[in-house]
Every structure is written in structure tokens, then in C-alpha cells.
């Protein structure tokens, strides 16, 4: 059974990453990485901090450029697109940042309106209000509509960050450490929200995390990034059915200690 409760179309790849490498100076973060995301799938990328998980989704969204290799998103080569074409493609990709990245100087309503008024200029004021209230309702935070980000808790900020990406109705969602720094109850709520989003908005998602509870709860498939490469792939139990000393401590820390 799918964790997300949705349907995976294994004939349609929405993201294809082939032989991608990325270095920062002498630090080789990704070394020839391959990745495929199927339509309707929740793919979890597991790995230690600093192994290049976030770099990978920044490469996919075009925020960074790969040193070598190709990245294809919804049939388009990201590194070959012009600035304008990339901007158009990004409307189909929702990016939920680790620290939510809400605009501090704007209210929750203004945060949500921001991408909408700039990318869907034909919408009337009434339609914009309706869209904002609809996504806020979807993340269960309609009462916070007039609050400033500084007045929200960490979990609420995450939800608003997700709502802001959903307002453009993306086909792909990229979650960067969605449960980092949250208490266990809020983590469970966020995991539930990721699955609800997949079900309601029919998105395909990559979830970057080192939280195994999150990976187990939302991942249809899991890949593990080790030493700059994806070394293990499969469902949760398959990933940890190994004696690999680089993998075992991960599981032991999360579920034994």
C-alpha cells in the first residue's frame, strides 16, 4: 500500500537526474548521482547532514547549477532553460524550505498572495482571497491569516510555508527537512500533511530528511545518499536490512536509543 494513498504512474518520470556532480571548491558533494521520480510518488532522500541532500533539490529547482550531468523536470532540461523559461517551470515546482523562509515583513495573507499576484495577474481580488483562504484551510491555519510570521510557532511556520507553495498548484513538491526542529507531535502532523497534500493536489514529491519516522510515514520509496552517491534504494525495511556500517547507526539511533 502506498504511504501517500495516491496512485503512482511508473511509466511517467517527472524528474530524471542523470550522472549529476556538484562541488563547492575542494568539497565534492555529489559524485555522479542518478535519480528518478515517478508521477504521483513520494520519494524520500535520506542521508547525513552535509551530504548534499538539500543541494540536490536546489539543483532540481535551478537555484544551483550542476558541474556535470543532466536534470530533466517535466520533460525540460533545467540547465538549458532561459531565465524566463526557468521561471515558468518553477511555477510547477513547490519548494518547502527547511526554515520555512516566510517573508518576515509580510503577514500570512501577504505571504500567500505574493506568488499569486505576480504569476496569475488575471485573478480578481475576490478570487485571490478565495485561493488564499482555501490553501490556508487545507493546512488548518485559517485563523492565522492576519498574523505576522514572528507570531507563529515552528510547526505553524512550516505549514504556512507549505501553503505558500501550494497556492500555485504545483505538480511537484520538494520538501527540505520538513520535520527538522519540531516536536514529535508536530512531526506527525507535518507527515500527515505531506500525505494529504499528495492526495488532494495529486503532487509528486521529493522529501529530504534524516528523520526516519518521517521517511517511514511518507515515503513510497526511499533512496539513501552515502558519500555523494545513492547507494541504497527501496522501501523502508529493505533500506535498513543491511550490515553496512554507514547505514546501521542511522537506524539504531532513531529506533533503539
Amino acid at each position, binding site marked *: 500500500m502506498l504511504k501517500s494513498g495516491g496512485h503512482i504512474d511508473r511509466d511517467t518520470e517527472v524528474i530524471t537526474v542523470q550522472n549529476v556532480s556538484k562541488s563547492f571548491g575542494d568539497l565534492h558533494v555529489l559524485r555522479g548521482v542518478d535519480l528518478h521520480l515517478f508521477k504521483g510518488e513520494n520519494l524520500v532522500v535520506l542521508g547525513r547532514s552535509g551530504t548534499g541532500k538539500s543541494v540536490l533539490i536546489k539543483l532540481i529547482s535551478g537555484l544551483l547549477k550542476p558541474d556535470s550531468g543532466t536534470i530533466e523536470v517535466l520533460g525540460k532540461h533545467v540547465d538549458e532553460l532561459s531565465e524566463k523559461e526557468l521561471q515558468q517551470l518553477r511555477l510547477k515546482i513547490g*519548494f518547502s*524550505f527547511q*526554515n520555512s*523562509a*516566510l*517573508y518576515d515583513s509580510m503577514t500570512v495573507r501577504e505571504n500567500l498572495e505574493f506568488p499569486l499576484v*505576480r504569476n496569475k495577474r488575471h485573478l480578481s481580488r475576490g478570487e485571490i482571497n478565495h485561493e488564499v483562504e482555501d490553501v490556508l484551510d487545507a493546512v488548518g491555519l485559517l485563523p492565522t491569516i492576519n498574523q505576522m510570521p514572528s507570531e507563529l510557532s515552528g510547526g505553524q511556520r512550516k505549514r504556512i510555508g507549505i501553503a505558500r507553495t501550494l497556492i500555485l498548484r504545483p505538480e511537484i513538491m520538494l520538501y527540505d527537512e520538513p520535520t527538522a526542529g519540531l516536536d514529535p507531535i508536530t512531526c506527525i502532523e507535518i507527515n500527515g500533511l505531506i500525505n494529504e497534500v499528495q492526495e488532494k493536489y495529486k503532487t509528486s514529491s521529493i522529501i529530504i530528511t534524516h528523520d526516519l519516522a518521517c521517511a517511514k510515514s511518507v515515503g513510497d520509496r526511499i533512496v539513501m545518499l552515502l558519500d555523494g552517491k545513492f547507494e541504497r534504494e527501496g522501501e523502508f525495511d529493505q533500506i535498513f536490512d543491511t550490515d553496512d556500517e554507514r547505514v546501521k547507526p542511522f537506524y539504531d539511533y532513531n529506533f533503539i536509543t
Partner: protein
Amino acid sequence: MIKKIQRILIELANIHRFVMRFYREVFMPPYEFKEIIRQCYEVGWKSLPLISLTGFITGVVFTNQSRPSLAEFGATSWLPALISIAIIRALAPLVTALIASGKVGSQIGAELGSMRVTEQIDAMEVSGTNPFKFLVVSRVLATTITIPILSFYTAGVGLIGAFLSVNQRENTSFTVYFDQVFEAVTYLDIFSLVLKAVVFGFTIGIVGCYQGYHSSKGTEGVGRAANWAVVMSMFLIFIEEILIVQIIQAMRA
């Protein structure tokens, strides 16, 4: 040593690219009129109290400092003319720009810097918005438009401050004082004020935005961006002052 020179050259190339990108983006739609007006309010209106006080004190102090020299030649009646030339040609744009680079430049550097390190700029980019146009173009336009207006205001406040001093000591009336003030000022002096203020305003905006937009290394980077925004813009303002004075002198001759 070679690495240091290499770093400086790379930095200069980055600054050049940043300025060229501004010129490219400023004419391309969509235009962020609402944000430009909001930034003009932030830069202009919110700087008024500080600019008023500084302009007024500049007028009073300059008058009091100039009086003894003119008194030696029995030429205190020339005070209004001297003051108007000094304030309009040099002091008003310079004082306004220095105050603005401290207040506005650091604010822009810190604001964009913190937006960079908290990934707010990346968030704009991935949501299909051009952050350069929204954040940089609007702020640079706001400082370029607002600093000339503030400079005229500073000149007015400075001249009023100077009048109070002249009126108290020389018993010069308001009408006589301002007749002498406007008689001494030429169109070239007004042009000089506008030219300097536009260049200074652009410098404050572009330096603040460049430092903030390229900020890194967490909170330390934000502090450094704000600090460098002030230091660099003040330094450049003095260099530009020297160059513009030479150009105006050449035009006067």
C-alpha cells in the same frame, strides 16, 4: 598575494555584472510600482526627522563658523550669498547622502542580507518571482529618486537654520536674506545639486543591495553586509564628489 588580487578582480567583475543587471532589469516589465512607492516612503519619509535635524544644525554651524572670517574684512553682509552657494553646491547633497548611507544603506544591506541567509530570496526565486527586480531594482530606484528630493529639503532647512543665525546677529530680514540667497545661486548650482544627489542616491542603493544580496555566512555575514554597505557607499560618495566638482568646474569655465 596573487590570490588576493584574483579575489579583488572577481569581486569587481561581480559588481560590474550586478550594475549591468540593474540597467537591464529596470526597463523590462513587469514594473513593481507599488514596491517602489513603498521603498520611497521607507527611504524618504522615515529619514525626514534625522535629515531635518542634521540640515538645520549644518546651516547654523556653517554660518557661525564662517562669520569670523568674513568679519575680519567687514564683509558679513556677504554671509547669505556664501551660505547659499556652500549649502546648495556642496553641503546639502553631501550631508543628505552621508546621513542616508548610514541610515538607509545599512538598513538595505541588513535587510537583504537577512533575507539571503534565511532563504527568503531563494523562496521568491522558486515561486516564479524575480527577486532582483522586486528587491534590488525597487530599492535602487527609491534611493535614486528620494535622495535628490531630500537634498532640496536639506538645503531648505539648512538655509532656514542659517537665516536664524544671520537674523539674530546681523538683524537681516527674511526678505533681504532670501533675496541675497537666490541672487547668488545659478542654474548650474541647482544642476550640480541634482547631479550629485542622483549619483549619490544610486550609489547608496546599489552598494547596499549588492552587499545584502551577496551576503553569506549567517548572522556574521548580515552584520558585515550592513557594515560594508555604509563604508563602501561613504567612500564612493567622496570619490564621486571630487569627480563631479571637477566636471561642474569645467562646465563653469
